């Protein structure tokens, strides 16, 4: 009986393993509103991809949806008029360097081709030139459709009713650009991102505080790429068989063809974007961290640094799991692009990301570690917590840079996590703070605006570094266990959803109130209003310390004719010490002041920091020697730490030490000059 059944079982198994991809996760992590089944073939001569895609979409709202909106992000590389290109200088020149994507047909369930109704939209072109902000009402189409073709609207013949699903078949062709902005080819090296028509996010009214329902789509911008549904991807990639392929999915199968090509079948679940890479030279390193299979692909010249990358990734996995929440996928793939593909360095696609390094970097320069930790962090902040990077970029890059700092400083030392060389070292948090404060104008923009609204190239410092700095300051104010609880709750409540800024602030208020009551006021809104939603700066100073002998009050006392003159007399061994504080900038934060007396006594004072000036006065036998604002260095947003302390007995030791160093430097330089005589 068994013998008779055996062929049937084999056929049955073969059928299921070949036509139905194996599921990666036992339970779906998200609603999986969108599913993509894509077959794509890469022509390595023309650098073109020809693809067939079956898109399934479920209407998550109570609205009747009459069109589909796609992100056609490869068209950002089509010409100099695209929004991305117009936001900076052009970097492509020859005809073969440009890239584009075209839908050739889109067939609805009735077999109707919908391409005739397609039109490009420019939803972000309505920016007010003066305020650099979007108006409240966004016109659907503002400019000549020739300008930017990265958002495409396709009217449906038959609308999608609330809760209904739609399946369309799409044929598309993509021409890869010469590698730029993490997309394209460099000779025979491929980094294939933004390569297929990707559906936007349909937001029902109320979602992310949207007043109206509708598609949330944005043009491809120089500084932002991501806002998408958590989706299911089954992707077949066909290309010459000598290429090694990596992607954000799990490799299910490979199949060789007679024409010398091979099809690689990948499946990825609950991720927001699918990118892949191919190179004939990749070396593959595999490792394991708990349930996670780690795969690192790099070119031979960087292979000796593979261990550094993998160790850094394990640090990040460990730390984020412990302090935020578990990494839910059983796989992560990352790559170290070669120099010719360096434009692909430092990018994230949830379960797939690109690191970055240079041959010959000493261990004390932690670039490979830093890029690995940062880009992996996006699996959480953008991947799991799928915020809208276009509209609220601080939630993506800002929060992620904060966690990068925590992981790096924890793993490699708070003073040595970025640079650890003889005689010079610097930590991640120190770097973030300096990058923000060394801006020509740190008040140029608040951090609560869309990614393309930052003037004069201020996006990086404001979104990455300033956000990270004020998050570190928040951590020091409320305590690390409290901020960990905030992020754990944020992860639990909003994981695999699309949280907005207010959702995060609500959790901060909730948790801070639970742990600290009203110690910081009714809510922490004041904190976000000052450091996120405004460009106010913070600077408290000790203007001076004054110490005088105490004198009895002198003068004439009593009634006329019976007046007594009393001489003003010094009270022995009693001194009046005044510690004079001032607030130099607009931001208001309660501060602590440590006051040190000449007998060694110390008093920790608290000031609400609201008034422009405040004095602490002491009348006692001991004199104040020095005072220090924020002795525990919590107030990282304080723009000037030099004026945070004041001593009546300044030491010249540091001047001696550094003058000695300067002298030694000059003497060595003069020895060097001696080679010419």
């Amino acid at each position, binding site marked *: 009986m068994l013998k008779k059944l055996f062929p049937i079982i084999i056929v049955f198994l073969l059928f299921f393993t070949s036509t139905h991809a194996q599921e990666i996760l036992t339970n779906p992590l998200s609603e999986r509103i969108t599913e993509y089944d894509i077959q794509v073939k890469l022509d390595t001569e023309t650098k073109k991809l020809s693809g067939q895609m079956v898109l399934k979409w479920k209407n998550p709202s109570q609205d009747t949806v009459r069109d589909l909106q796609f992100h056609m992000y490869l068209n950002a590389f089509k010409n100099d008029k695209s929004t991305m290109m117009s936001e900076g200088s052009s970097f492509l020149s020859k005809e073969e360097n440009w890239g584009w994507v075209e839908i050739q047909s889109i067939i609805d369930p009735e077999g109707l081709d919908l391409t005739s109704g397609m039109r490009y939209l420019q939803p972000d072109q309505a920016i007010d030139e003066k305020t650099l902000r979007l108006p409240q009402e966004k016109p659907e189409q503002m400019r000549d459709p020739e300008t930017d073709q990265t958002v495409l609207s396709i009217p449906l013949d038959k609308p999608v009713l609330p809760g209904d699903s739609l399946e369309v078949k799409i044929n598309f062709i993509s021409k890869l650009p010469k590698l730029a902005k993490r997309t394209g080819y460099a000779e025979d090296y491929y980094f294939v991102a933004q390569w297929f028509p990707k559906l936007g996010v349909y937001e029902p009214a109320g979602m992310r505080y949207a007043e109206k329902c509708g598609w949330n789509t944005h043009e491809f911008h120089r500084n932002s790429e991501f806002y998408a549904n958590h989706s299911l991807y089954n992707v077949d990639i066909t290309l010459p068989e000598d290429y090694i392929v990596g992607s954000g999915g799990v490799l299910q199968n490979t199949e060789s063809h007679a024409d010398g090509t091979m099809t690689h079948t990948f499946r990825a679940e609950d991720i927001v974007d699918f990118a892949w890479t191919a190179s004939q030279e990749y070396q593959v390193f595999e490792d394991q961290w708990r349930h996670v299979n780690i795969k690192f692909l790099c070119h031979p010249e960087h292979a000796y640094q593979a261990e550094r990358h993998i160790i850094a990734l394990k640090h990040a996995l460990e730390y984020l799991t412990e302090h935020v929440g578990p990494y839910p996928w059983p796989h992560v793939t990352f790559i170290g692009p070669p120099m010719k593909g360096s434009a692909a360095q430092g990018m994230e696609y949830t379960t797939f990301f690109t690191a970055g390094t240079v041959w010959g970097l000493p261990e004390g320069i932690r670039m490979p570690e830093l890029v690995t930790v940062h880009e992996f962090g996006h699996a959480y902040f953008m991947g799991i917590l799928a915020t809208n990077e276009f509209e609220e970029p601080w939630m993506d890059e800002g929060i992620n840079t904060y966690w990068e700092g925590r992981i790096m400083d924890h793993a490699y030392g708070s003073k040595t996590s970025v640079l650890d060389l003889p005689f010079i070292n610097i930590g991640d948090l120190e770097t973030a703070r300096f990058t923000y404060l060394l801006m020509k104008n740190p008040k140029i923009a608040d951090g609560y605006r869309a990614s393309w609204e930052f003037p004069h190239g201020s996006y990086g410092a404001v979104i990455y570094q300033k956000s990270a700095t004020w998050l570190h300051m928040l951590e020091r104010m409320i305590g690390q266990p409290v901020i960990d609880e905030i992020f754990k709750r944020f992860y639990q409540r909003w994981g695999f959803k699309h949280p907005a800024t207010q959702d995060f602030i609500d959790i901060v208020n909730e948790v801070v109130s639970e742990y600290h009551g009203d110690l910081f006021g009714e809510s922490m809104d004041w904190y976000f209003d000052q450091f996120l939603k405004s460009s106010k700066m913070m600077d408290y100073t000790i203007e001076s310390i004054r110490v005088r002998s105490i004198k009895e009050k002198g003068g004439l006392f009593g009634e006329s004719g019976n007046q007594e003159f009393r001489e003003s007399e010094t009270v022995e061994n009693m001194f009046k010490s005044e510690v004079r504080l001032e607030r130099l900038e607009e931001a208001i934060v309660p501060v602590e002041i440590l006051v040190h007396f000449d007998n060694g006594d110390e008093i920790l004072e608290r000031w609400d920091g609201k008034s422009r000036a405040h004095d602490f006065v002491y009348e006692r036998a001991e004199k104040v020697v*020095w005072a220090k604002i924020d002795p525990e260095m919590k107030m990282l947003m304080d723009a000037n730490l030099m004026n945070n302390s004041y001593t009546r007995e300044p030491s010249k030791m540091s001047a001696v*030490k550094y003058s000695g160093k300067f002298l*030694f430097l000059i003497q060595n330089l003069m020895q060097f000059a001696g080679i010419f005589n």
Partner: protein
Amino acid sequence: MMKILKAYKSGWTVSLNSKRMTSLVYLSYLILALLLVIPFYRLFVSVAGSSLLPDDLIRGFSATALGEFMREGGKAFGFYLKALLPWMVLFLVLGTFFQGGIISWISNDRGRFSTKTFIGNCVAYFWPFLKTCFYTLIIQIIFAVLVYLPVSILIGGDNLTDAHIGKTLIFGIAIHLLLLIWGTMIAEYTRLFIYRSGKRKVLKSLWKAFKFTLRNIHRLFGMYIMWVILPLALFIALYLIRMRWTIDPGLMIFLLFLVQQVFIWVRFLLKIQKTSIFYRYLVLIVQKA
């Protein structure tokens, strides 16, 4: 080999007797350096004001403290960094000036050191040695072009790896280092030929030095390597001392300063020793001829 060892040993003996001359050279340089360092110190004290933050710089390195400090007085400190280049030119001229006195004293190692005679010889040979310095500069520029032009062509192509670029650069720098040393040896022997001939014909002496160093290149490099071992060992020792002294307030800062100054003094001594070794070698070769 015997000649190298003889020259090396003789160079040592001469340099050990040149402590007074070394001190004179060292002090002259120190005074010139202090012209920059004293105002730097005053600026540092003024920028630090009454703040406690600079105290963080006393114990080891603090990027935050240094960064804040430099932000406060950055522009003023920038002046001193910019001044380093003209100061190096001054040092170059001063070093050239001393060469006449040093060579004269080396050539007569049994004589007593006299500051007056020393300065007199410095003045006597200053002009031809300054010309030598100028020609050496041109030679060094030619060497740099000879190395980095092909290097830039080699690393300028498409489709290269960073490893290829890095290794080519390292190779180029190594070759340049060898040529740099050769250039200093040409300069050294040009001065020795000028001194020995008593004539001030710089270009002729330069040509002779070029031929001499080329003929004896392996021996001269051998001597150079022997000479370089001690400064290298000293540098490593200084590095280790500095790494160990992570807490260096007060006395430690003073001790470290002393060690640094002894290090600089010894380097001057070694430079005199190098000239002396090269001179003895020349004498030995000439005697044999």
